[in-house]
């Protein structure tokens, strides 16, 4: 059997194993273990375990549990409630104003946390009930929350870019800065979409009653104070990192501490809340870590059979594609695979195959990191497999059906794909800021 056939065979068996509904890490782990044993005999039995030491050496992954912890603390801290109250008053008069406020809230949360978990938790507990109460259409609400919270992995700090940086051996600081402008641009595009759609179809997002928004200007200005704490957290975490004072993993510890202090000051933390927070942190961290562990084992087998070279020869020699066509093929294949396979596992398995190709074709790996992250955001939302989708399903109230969720994401996915195309066509959207900051 040729190595290409083995690679395809492994991929297909992984897909079949996943379809049985067994835990993702087990489905990936069994395929890689069996493949290693069949390919290289008894000596390869240690391969799955050796992945644990690869994971060990990827110490920037320490940011993962810390950001998860921080996300849950932020959700409990009440910072988001204040912010939401502010956006409620300031944007309530606009058709679809609460949805716009939700996107802005998500941008602020994204600037404090590197995952979409925090945004989802806050969106589902604060923004979702509020919008439902005001008669927002169901298909508007879940799309707003899902696309908004996915900004968490694009706006710095970002855990996906940390993972990408480890795989592609690129500096995380530059990657984070490269995500900043595309993140803000995507938020702007989402807001434009909401405003335009609600302008023509007011029943999707009615305005908030005048009586609720009616308050003197001084009161309105006071509400802006809600932005102070998030700004401080952002400064201590990302600011100190970009200035080179704290290292990457230290900055996530600083962020976790800052969020804890903010929650303590607001007297939101008691024993029970704290216990629940660290239990959820453990559960979600273990989920991600075991998937990464299994995927690294899978990647090691792929490495052993030279899958990266096989893809390279397929795209460049056999199909004779131009660099741009290869790039588009990679993004499309990632989107399609991302629908059916676990997204984190995809990142760990597929990125090592694609990144060398990107470098070979002469594209900027920093820029590709941003494209990759946006593709990931879309993959997180698209059915049938997406973390945001799972979280949304778990957190949404029963009157929102699965079909509502699926229907609501379509236009938002289209807007996000448009943002992806923009960054592809105009690389400077991503590259200007890191070049400006690091060339000084």
């Amino acid at each position, binding site marked *: 059997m040729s190595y290409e056939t083995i690679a395809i065979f492994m991929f297909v068996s992984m897909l079949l194993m996943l*379809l*049985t509904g067994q835990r993702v890490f087990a489905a990936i782990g069994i395929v890689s273990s069996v493949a290693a044993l069949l390919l290289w005999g008894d000596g390869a039995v240690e391969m799955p*375990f*050796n992945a644990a030491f690869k994971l060990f050496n990827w110490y920037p992954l320490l940011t993962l549990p810390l950001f998860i912890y921080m996300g849950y603390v932020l959700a409990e801290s009440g910072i988001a409630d204040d912010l939401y109250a502010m956006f409620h008053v300031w944007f309530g008069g606009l058709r679809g104003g609460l949805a716009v406020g939700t996107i802005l809230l998500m941008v602020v949360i994204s600037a404090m946390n590197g995952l979409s978990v925090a945004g989802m938790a806050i969106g589902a507990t604060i923004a979702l009930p509020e919008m439902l109460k005001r008669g927002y259409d169901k298909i508007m609400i879940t799309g707003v929350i899902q696309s908004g919270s996915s900004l968490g992995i694009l706006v710095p700090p970002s855990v996906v870019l940390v993972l990408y940086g480890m795989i592609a051996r690129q500096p995380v600081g530059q990657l984070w800065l490269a995500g900043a402008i595309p993140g803000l641009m995507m938020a702007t595009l989402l807001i434009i979409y909401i405003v335009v759609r609600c302008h023509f179809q007011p029943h999707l997002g009615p305005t908030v009653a005048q009586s609720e928004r009616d308050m003197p200007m001084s009161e309105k200005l006071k509400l802006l104070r809600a932005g102070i704490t998030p700004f401080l957290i952002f400064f201590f975490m990302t600011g100190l990192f970009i200035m080179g004072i704290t290292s990457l993993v230290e900055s996530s510890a600083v962020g976790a501490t800052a969020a804890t202090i903010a929650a303590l000051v607001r007297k939101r933390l008691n024993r029970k809340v704290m216990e629940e927070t660290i239990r959820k942190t*453990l559960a979600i961290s273990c989920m991600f*870590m075991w998937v990464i562990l299994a995927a690294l084992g899978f990647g090691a087998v792929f490495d052993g059979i030279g899958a990266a070279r096989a893809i390279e020869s397929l795209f460049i020699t056999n199909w004779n594609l131009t660099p741009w066509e290869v790039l588009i093929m990679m993004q499309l294949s990632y989107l399609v695979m991302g629908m059916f396979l676990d997204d984190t596992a995809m990142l760990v398995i597929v990125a090592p195959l694609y990144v060398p190709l990107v470098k070979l074709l002469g594209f900027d790996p920093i820029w590709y990191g941003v494209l990759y992250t946006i593709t990931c955001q879309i993959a997180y939302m698209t059915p049938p497999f997406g973390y945001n989708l799972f979280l949304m399903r778990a957190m949404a109230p029963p009157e929102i059906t699965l079909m509502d969720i699926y229907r609501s994401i379509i236009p938002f996915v289209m807007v996000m794909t448009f943002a992806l195309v923009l960054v592809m066509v105009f690389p400077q959207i991503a590259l200007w800021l890191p070049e400006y900051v690091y060339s000084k």
Partner: protein
Amino acid sequence: MPKFIVNYVKVIDYLSTKFGRLAMYLIFVMIATLLINAFTRNIINLPLSWCIEMAQFTMTAYYIVGGPYSMQLDSHVRMDLLYSRFSPKNRARLDSFTAIFLVVYLVCLLIGAISSTMYAIEYDQRKFSQWNPSMIPIKVIMVFGIFLMLLQAISTFFKDLAKSRGIELS
């Protein structure tokens, strides 16, 4: 279900919970270690070489020993395209069948972990760095965690098997 299976499930679930809840608090150890590092380097100008490595060891122990408890909490994602359409009883049937994947994978991990630990003990393996810590403790912890994960997987298998026959264990 035979009595010894019921007891096995009880004991293993108890152990996973206890150790998992112990691992849960390691998040604070990670935060504290990293903060100490940031503090001593920037404020009193004393770079500590062991902090990052200590945090790496802690993270490994955190997710390996926490694994069994998180499996008990059923927080490991599944691809539920088909799975979500089955009745709970059929899901349990399917799970008790596909548990073999889980068990075989964990056995492979365990064999690798044990042989790696034997090697570390035999040659007194140390991490190549300024701090130069012994690798034995973390490897022993990993063997323990993976073994507990295997025991928990078997316990989960018994629970699914019982559920597919309409009995709830634990």
